[in-house]
């Protein structure tokens, strides 16, 4: 049995899944001040009637890291950067960076090495540090050496290229910075979670969801805490995956929560990823995630009416009046229209009626719904327009552009069933609401696979192979063809998976010792995300190649869930 927990902004959900079926689930209000309270109650509820020992794995999707950065409560970090020549980055990061002299160029050649003596002179003011060098993804050597020098003076040192092998020095730097800035928070959370689970008698291994939809063991997450930011949308996407509700064509998926609606786009059953990574506050980071856009409309969006002008959201004041709130919400309007059935119906009517007593209450509710639908439509249109403006770098894709044209809607979340039909009508699209839609996120968390992403870059001229995420730099590499580099990437990932006991399914340690047979039965699914293969001409004659393969243990689910 798998246990999934999703701590959202409004609700904390828990679900138990056994062989593709939902055994039991619970929905609690999130206890903002101390997330653990809500988690404990949710745990007690879902485990009330089951044998705790049968739980094989626990996965959490939590706002603990997200809230920390949103509320500016992260630790301050000493940030060491090796920018070399280029853009002025004096004001690009949350703190004034400590500049380290040196430069590695775009081919990964160290043009000028860092000055170790100068580093010794820097005074350490904080417990945590981060290091990031320009083009460290092409050659992580300098970054690694600087991090090693700093390691003695700090509790924790993050490296940009260890977190992302992709180009974009400011993004890797931001990832490294926040990685160190939230490690303390995640450590505390780890202790609290282990304690809470032990209280109930659950000893299964614990995983945390990442923004890209993969999961990490709790210890693994402590090396990359920044990746556990913004996991709510990832949980939704995985939940949708688990329901197998999205197949062909271009699908718009909506997760309608209490405060916000998350919009994601799917092409032929595959969710789209962000271009460079998520924004952490105003800072673009290298943390990969699904491309999910939040708009300020949810089931508990507050409704106001000033001089006949109706607004819905973007803020949430409290629960709907039907549930004892003090101001009317979109949910109350849906109750008035008979589209939702819960709570104190009379209170919902009262709230909507009092907005403007000169307007008939059902008419008012309809106007409110219309405003909400218009917001949602605008949000979807904006996301689709942006997707269709994605930069393209090859002639063929410009000449044969594949525009995103929505052909169906899939709606999940607390208000899915009450709003979905209206949204479908409004947009003129077929709409699907999977069963269990209310706890999609917790389901997504429960079935998340472990993932790992690497970038393998081969420079044939220099006979060099680099894997920045793993700190690998191999001289004397003899690979000359892109197919061979692809195979190498797969081999490296497979080895990594075996060394870390990552199976394409349940963690092997559950079943006792590691069995090679079980590994063979579970073929590891590796996905090639991106391939670049460029001829390099030097001296007009010799044609060498620069080849880059990005590969990952495939994001996905360990089992599908009946909906």
């Amino acid at each position, binding site marked *: 049995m798998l246990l999934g927990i999703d701590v959202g902004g409004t609700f904390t959900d828990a679900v138990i899944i056994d062989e593709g079926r939902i055994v039991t689930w619970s929905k609690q209000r999130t206890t903002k001040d101390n997330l653990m309270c809500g988690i404990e109650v949710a745990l007690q509820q879902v485990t009330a009637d089951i044998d705790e020992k049968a739980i094989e794995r626990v996965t959490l999707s939590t706002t603990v890291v997200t809230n920390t950065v949103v509320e500016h409560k992260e630790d301050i970090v000493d940030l060491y950067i090796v920018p070399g020549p280029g853009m002025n980055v004096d004001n690009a990061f949350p703190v004034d960076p400590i500049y380290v002299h040196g430069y590695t160029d775009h081919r990964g050649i160290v043009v000028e090495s860092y000055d170790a003596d100068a580093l010794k002179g820097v005074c350490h003011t904080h417990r945590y540090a981060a290091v990031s060098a320009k083009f460290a993804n092409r050659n992580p050597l300098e970054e690694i050496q600087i991090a090693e020098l700093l390691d003695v003076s700090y509790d924790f040192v993050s490296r940009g290229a260890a977190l992302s092998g992709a180009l974009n020095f400011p993004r890797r730097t931001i990832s490294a910075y926040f990685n160190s800035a939230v490690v303390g928070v995640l450590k505390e959370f780890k202790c609290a979670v282990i304690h809470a689970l032990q209280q109930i008698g659950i000893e299964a291994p614990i995983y945390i969801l990442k923004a890209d939809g993969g999961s990490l063991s709790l210890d693994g997450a402590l090396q990359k805490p920044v990746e556990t930011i913004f996991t709510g949308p990832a949980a939704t996407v995985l939940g949708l995956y688990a329901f197998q509700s999205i197949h062909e064509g271009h699908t718009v998926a909506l997760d309608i929560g209490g405060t916000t609606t998350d919009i994601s786009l799917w092409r032929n059953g595959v969710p789209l990823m962000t271009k460079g990574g998520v924004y952490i506050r*105003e800072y673009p980071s290298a943390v990969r995630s699904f491309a999910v856009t939040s708009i300020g409309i949810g089931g508990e969006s507050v409704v106001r009416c000033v001089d006949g002008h109706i607004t819905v959201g973007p803020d949430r004041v409290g629960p709907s009046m039907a549930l004892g709130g003090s101001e009317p919400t979109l949910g109350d309007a849906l109750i008035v229209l008979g589209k939702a059935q819960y709570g104190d119906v009379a209170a919902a009517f009262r709230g909507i009626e009092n907005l403007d007593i000169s307007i008939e209450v059902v008419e008012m509710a309809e106007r409110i719904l219309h405003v909400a639908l218009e917001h949602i439509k605008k949000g979807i249109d904006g996301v689709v327009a942006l997707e269709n403006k994605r930069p393209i770098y090859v002639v063929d894709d410009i000449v044969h552009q594949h525009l995103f044209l929505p052909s169906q809607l899939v709606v999940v979340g607390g208000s899915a069933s009450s709003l979905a039909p209206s949204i479908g009508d409004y947009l003129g699209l077929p709409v699907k609401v999977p069963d269990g839609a209310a706890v999609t996120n917790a389901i997504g968390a429960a079935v998340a696979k472990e993932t790992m992403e690497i970038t393998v870059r081969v420079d044939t001229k220099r006979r060099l192979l680099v894997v920045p995420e793993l700190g690998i730099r191999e001289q004397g590499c003899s690979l000359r063809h892109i197919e061979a580099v692809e195979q190498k990437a797969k081999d490296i990932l497979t080895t990594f998976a075996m060394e870390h006991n990552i199976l394409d399914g349940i963690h092997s340690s559950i079943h006792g010792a590691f069995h090679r047979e079980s590994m063979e039965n579970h073929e590891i699914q590796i996905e090639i995300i991106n391939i670049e293969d460029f001829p390099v001409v030097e001296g007009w004659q010799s044609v060498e190649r620069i080849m880059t393969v990005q590969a990952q243990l495939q994001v996905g689910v360990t089992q599908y869930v009946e909906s």
Partner: protein
Amino acid sequence: MWNHKDSYRVRTGILSDGGLSRSGHMQGCYGEQVNHGSVLGLVFFPAFDWKISVTHPERQERLLYTRDQIVEEGLLDLPNIREYNPIVAPWDTIERVHVGAPDLQSWVTDAHRVSAGGAIAAADAVLKGEVDRAFALVRPPGHHAMSMVHGIRGFCTINIEAVMIQHIRQNYNVKRIAIVDTDVHHGDGSQQVFYHDPDTLFISFHQDGRTLYPGTGFMDEFGGPQAIGSNINIPLPPNTGDEGIKKVLRQLVLPILDEFKPDLVINSAGQDNHVSDPLANMNVTAKGYAEIVDILQADIAVLEGGYSVQDALPYVNTGIILSMAGLDYSRVIEPNYKPVIQSKQVTNYIDDVIESWRVQWSKRKQMKANTLLDCGDIWQQEHSVYYDETGISEDRLEKVRLYPNKVGWHSIESRSLHGPYGKQQVYAMFIPWQADETIRSDAWDEAHRIKSMGGFDKYVIVDPLGAGQILLD
């Protein structure tokens, strides 16, 4: 002087963001849009799937390291840099500039159309007021391509700036346009396309044609008889550095622009004046290029040549982008850069060029009067054009119809022998974009007259703001 730092949308009072919002990132509620003043539209199109041949300088890899650098610098994440995709330039627009032998389709590929379409997308962003300036970082280049196309010249097939300007003239009310070509090679294609247009000023500074392809670009190529003074060639000695180019800009180019009073300034931004370029011999640095851009304050820049793909382009383009976006470019310095001091000899030579130019510029009105006095209604000239990529030689007879107060037609009688499509004989009549009905009617009469005499395989009329390209049959 020209350099007043106001963008097109500020000068003309149009300001719009075209409904574009960059808040597309996740959790869009964080990260308020910061207004940095100057917004740069960037069309970055490296055409990673197009080459002339495997080892040719125009190959897939050319903008690879530039991509690496600008992505690694994080330039595409800056709030005041907006990325635009190119469009595919419509055949109709291309045909209002170029005539092909045997036809355009024989030479022009999708890649060329997308490159020209990149320039068009950049122009649209500026002219609609969505951005302050725009940079089309596209390939393949175009400034060696002339209106008559028998093949590929200097890696160019169609003139992407000319196609862009055609698009601008068709869609926006812009009369006076200046092109400043900062490529190390003389922009002979752009010169030819606009040679008879007094409202399009073409300024090219380049390494002296006696020492570099295409071997033209001298002071006496000063504009056609009705457009004298609208073509400015500034040949510079090999080993000219940042100092020399900046001096030429400040002392010559800006004052000329100031007198011309352009509505729009376009920079043909070749990057082969760089000290490391393998095809030329100049000493300009990346920061020097950023300064050139800063001094010029062009509205639209379009990439041309530049073949030091590893050592120059990544840094030059970073410098240009920062400079056009109004950001600090002082830290853009090539790794291992060792300053090259421009020799006294070079400096003196440049001072002489500037002085000669001042004299010629001051005499331009008199020169125009004298030319017109000599040649009556029709001015004509023979010359030949060589297509280096395919080894084709084309012979041309060019004629211009002169009017006292109007811009007249010009025609090209063109013949080539040894191309892959065999012998070509094409007559093309180019009606000026300024044409009224009299000019148009005179042009048609002339084209029919030539056709009645025979001798060509095909006869076309190009009417850029009228019916487009028409094949006479």
